[in-house]
């Protein structure tokens, strides 16, 4: 294999790498934020709010990411939603991840013992303070493994964005491979990159988990 090819395409690959990280990070953060909003609204909203959100969750979960992305990117302009590839990709990732995040938060909230909430109500804490100070911090601890897990799934969904010409790492690797016939080396390197990336995330996740559950370890 000719290493000089990687040197020549280095700048492209590097920018693709940066964009992949960015897409993953923003997709995770924004998707989780939207999912959190949905989960809180489901918990406190009325029947109609819950129904609308549940339908949203079912529809997004029930359709392929690529189809959602095409609808947004190619279908959007027909109803006046004209987005560049990157914003379309980020919006797509956010929407795609949100129902999964919402379900993670919903079940985490349900796992918070009612007594902890009642203890807040009994001293007269406002409901918003109960959410912020009790429900979220306690729920997040039990949600963390599932959150990390889904963010790992999202790393690999970012490659789909290459199809709508977001120049992330998959896109750049494809470009290099086509120009230089390095299909094996290029895609092998890409596969190794994702494996390493996921490994880093899962290690960071475990470390974070240990940190935020430290106070829950009973004395021996």
């Amino acid at each position, binding site marked *: 294999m000719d290493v000089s090819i990687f040197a020549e395409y280095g700048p492209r690959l590097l920018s693709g790498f940066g964009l992949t990280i960015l897409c993953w990070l923003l997709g995770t953060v924004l998707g989780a934020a939207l999912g959190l909003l949905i989960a809180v609204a489901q918990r406190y909203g009325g029947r109609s709010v819950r129904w609308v959100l549940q339908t949203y969750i079912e529809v997004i979960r029930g359709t392929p990411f690529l189809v959602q992305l095409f609808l947004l990117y190619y279908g959007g302009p027909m109803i006046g939603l004209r987005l560049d590839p990157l914003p379309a990709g980020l919006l797509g990732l956010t929407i795609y991840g949100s129902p999964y995040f919402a379900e993670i938060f919903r079940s985490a909230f349900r796992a918070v*013992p009612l*007594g*902890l909430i*009642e*203890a807040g*109500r*009994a*001293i*007269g*804490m*406002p*409901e918003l*303070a109960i959410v912020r*100070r*009790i429900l979220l*911090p*306690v729920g997040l*601890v039990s949600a963390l493994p599932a959150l990390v897990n889904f963010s790992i799934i999202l790393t690999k969904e970012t490659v789909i964005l290459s199809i709508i010409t977001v120049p992330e790492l998959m896109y750049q690797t494809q470009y290099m491979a086509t120009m230089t016939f390095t299909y094996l080396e290029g895609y092998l390197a890409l596969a190794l990159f994702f494996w390493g990336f996921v490994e880093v995330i899962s290690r960071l996740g475990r470390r974070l988990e240990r940190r935020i559950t430290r*106070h*829950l*370890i*009973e*004395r021996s």
Partner: protein
Amino acid sequence: MVEASSVEIRKVNKYYGDFHALKDIDLSIPPGKVTCLIGPSGSGKSSLLRCINFLEEYDSGEVLIDGKLIGYETPGGRRMSRRKLRQMRSTIGMVFQQFNLWPHMTAQENVAEGLRRVRGLRKAEAMERAAQALDRVGLSDRMANHPARLSGGQQQRVAIARAVAMDPRLMLFDEPTSALDPELVGEVLNVMKALAAGGMTMVVVTHEMGFAAHVADQVAFLDAGELVGVDAPARILREPEDPRIQSFLRTYHERNVI
């Protein structure tokens, strides 16, 4: 000393679906006195206690705290606003069977939380008051511990401090020692006795007949959602007239004979 509240319970009914959990309960809880609610499990004593701060919504009747209806605007009328309910609850302390301390906060933070979010105190002042409250329950050396690092008895004392720090005029205890190992029951009961001696109105759901006999001013016996009898502990526990109370006490004594 803050003034102590009275509680007036009138014709209170509570249903869970078809199950009639509380049947026309009438009970007067005088200010500054200790009232114990006893009875078999499932008799409705915890439900009744939880109606007093409206954690449990009664379906009809009235629960009056110092003459003021809790939970509804008018008897049988509209639900009272959340703000008003919060205001009333903030003067009613509650201690739960499972302690319900917030696991992500230290003992001191647990006690300070209500002072900050409900009383609006600044953090430093809330923490200072929390430290004083924990000192009163004998836990000044455990303030920085998270609940998981405390024994059950210590956790329950933190929970009492959390309620007491709010300067309540009424304290509700829902089987406060039932989840404790036997050797830890005493330390919690001692804190409760000190509170009672300080003139706090207390309503205590308990299986501790010793506490009921020695500390309570009146004991109410519930069975199957009915208030069977209310009397001074000496009378209701030593010479009960109602066969249901007799049978309950007989079972209790048999179980506690060594």
